């Protein structure tokens, strides 16, 4: 029975996903794609924060580096080849992660947060203060990359529906990859390191290698999100690498629920929608200008109400129901 319910749920979801572009207006479709990109970005951070216990406040650097990579390496005259640009963007993010991670992972806790922040700010100022990427103005990407084999164009993502499906595929594949990773022996070791690194070292795990590998993988997936972001908007600027961006994605992970992969996805959906609602003049009129205030208050309220994040909500309800069902019995 449960299996059937689940199967029906999955089928309905698939139908909904495929039907969405024809139901939704272009504004909503764009919003959904934005949510999916942030969900991917948050998933990549979940691997570090929730799965390995590495709280990074510099994750936007890898998102931004990949976005700039695509934009800078796309030729002025036509679309670049995705076969080179996507792996290139991911490798660029991973290379920066390997170098900075090898240094940052020598620290722990609050120091790790500060060092990752510092490395992200370094990357931020490279794009902010040098003419490399158009400085503070940023640069435009006029052509979305296409997948080409020789002269044959295998996939063109210019169309908003194909781009939507492509983004969805990237999100689902990364999600599947991370789920398999956490189920493997490598993932089990990451869980051990998150809970008690000392014990893992005493058992014989060289934990540094594990943490660095997880860090580089997580930053590579953030690179995929950065690639998609640049392709979506066709515009990049240094703010993509700013610490506010790292803070936002960290909030998504925390509000969504740490340690659970789908928590990151829930967090991305919730925060992007909240931001959209509070910024909407149609809904809030002139007050929408003060969206930072309402957004901040909403976050405080959510953290207070949901100590385990959105993904922990079912568990929270179950516990509450259990404690309710126990108390009348004990009163008798």
């Amino acid at each position, binding site marked *: 029975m449960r299996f059937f319910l689940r199967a029906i749920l999955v089928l309905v979801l698939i139908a909904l996903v495929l039907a969405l572009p024809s139901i939704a207006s272009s504004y909503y479709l764009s919003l959904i794609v934005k949510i999916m990109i942030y969900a991917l970005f948050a998933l990549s951070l979940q691997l570090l924060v929730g799965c390995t216990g590495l709280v990074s406040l510099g994750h936007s650097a890898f998102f931004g580096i990949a976005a700039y990579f695509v934009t800078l390496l796309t030729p002025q005259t036509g679309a670049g080849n995705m076969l080179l640009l996507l792996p290139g963007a991911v490798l660029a993010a991973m290379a920066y992660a390997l170098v900075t991670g090898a240094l940052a992972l020598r620290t722990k806790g609050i120091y790790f947060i500060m060092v990752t922040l510092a490395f992200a700010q370094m990357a931020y100022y490279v794009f902010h203060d040098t003419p490399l990427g158009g400085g503070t103005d940023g640069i435009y990407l006029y052509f979305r990359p296409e997948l080409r084999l020789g002269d044959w164009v295998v996939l063109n993502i210019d169309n908003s529906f194909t781009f939507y499906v492509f983004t969805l595929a990237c999100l689902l594949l990364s999600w599947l990859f991370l789920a*398999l990773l956490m*189920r*493997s*022996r*490598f*993932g*089990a*070791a990451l*869980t*051990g390191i998150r*809970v*008690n690194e*000392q*014990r*893992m*070292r*005493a*058992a*014989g*795990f*060289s*934990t540094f290698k594990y943490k660095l*590998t997880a860090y580089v993988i997580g930053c590579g997936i953030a690179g995929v999100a950065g690639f998609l972001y640049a392709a979506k908007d066709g515009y990049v600027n240094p703010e993509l690498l700013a610490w506010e961006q790292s803070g936002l994605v960290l909030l998504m992970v925390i509000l969504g629920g740490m340690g659970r992969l789908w928590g990151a996805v829930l967090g991305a959906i919730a925060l992007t929608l909240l931001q959209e609602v509070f910024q909407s003049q149609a809904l809030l009129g002139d007050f929408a200008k003060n969206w930072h205030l309402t957004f901040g208050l909403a976050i405080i309220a959510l953290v207070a109400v949901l100590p385990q994040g959105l993904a922990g909500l079912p568990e929270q309800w179950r516990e509450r129901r259990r404690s309710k069902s126990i108390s009348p019995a004990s009163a008798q």
Partner: protein
Amino acid sequence: MTQTLLSAHNITRRFGGLTAIDNVSLELKRGAVHAVIGTNGAGKSTLVSVLSGELAPNEGTIFMNQENITNWPQPKRARAGMGRSYQRTTIFPSLTVHENCRLTAQANHQHFLSWTPYTRCAKSNESADRALELAGLSSFSNQTAGLLSHGGKRQLEIAMSLSTHPSVLLLDEPLAGMGSEETDRMLNLLASLKSEHAILLVEHDMDAVFRISDEITVMVNGAVIAHGEPADIKANPLVQTAYLGDDE
């Protein structure tokens, strides 16, 4: 013939101006429990940390199986056959008892590129089952580790150390906070482990120490003041004034 598995020579470890361990040498032999006793702050835990590779010594050398391991990091020593338990329980409370041991046993079967689920790692499952049986925890296999009794958690701590098939065991106060029944069970466990392992036991419970150990080293302020068989240590006037005298 007794076989020396671990030997430390002239180990000194300083923290700033404080000499926590001062020129300490000791040997661990297969089939013997070597107890290290001493008052609080005598440097016993620091000694365990230096032997296990968590702290580097300022001076001295450490050999395991005739190999100089002084510069080896802790994980490498562990993989070469050194197991340790901690004074403060270091189990993974949210995992099952079995998974606690399976995870530590996985250290001998590490694989970065394996995509099969960790639950299907046959070798680490076997090692975990064996360790749980040795430690007498088989019947608690599927219980959440955090819900075990205090004694059970201490037993699990030892089982986790055993899961990697170590030849040398460094046990930092395995009896801390245990009731008399739990202590008995733990001492029986240690006695059963003796034949296969070289055991270093740091312990405050004097009755237990004299019951189980074959060799005792007494430390005061980081230095060894006596070393010998339990009967000799009991009779040693230096030890009586420095340490035992206060208790009796």
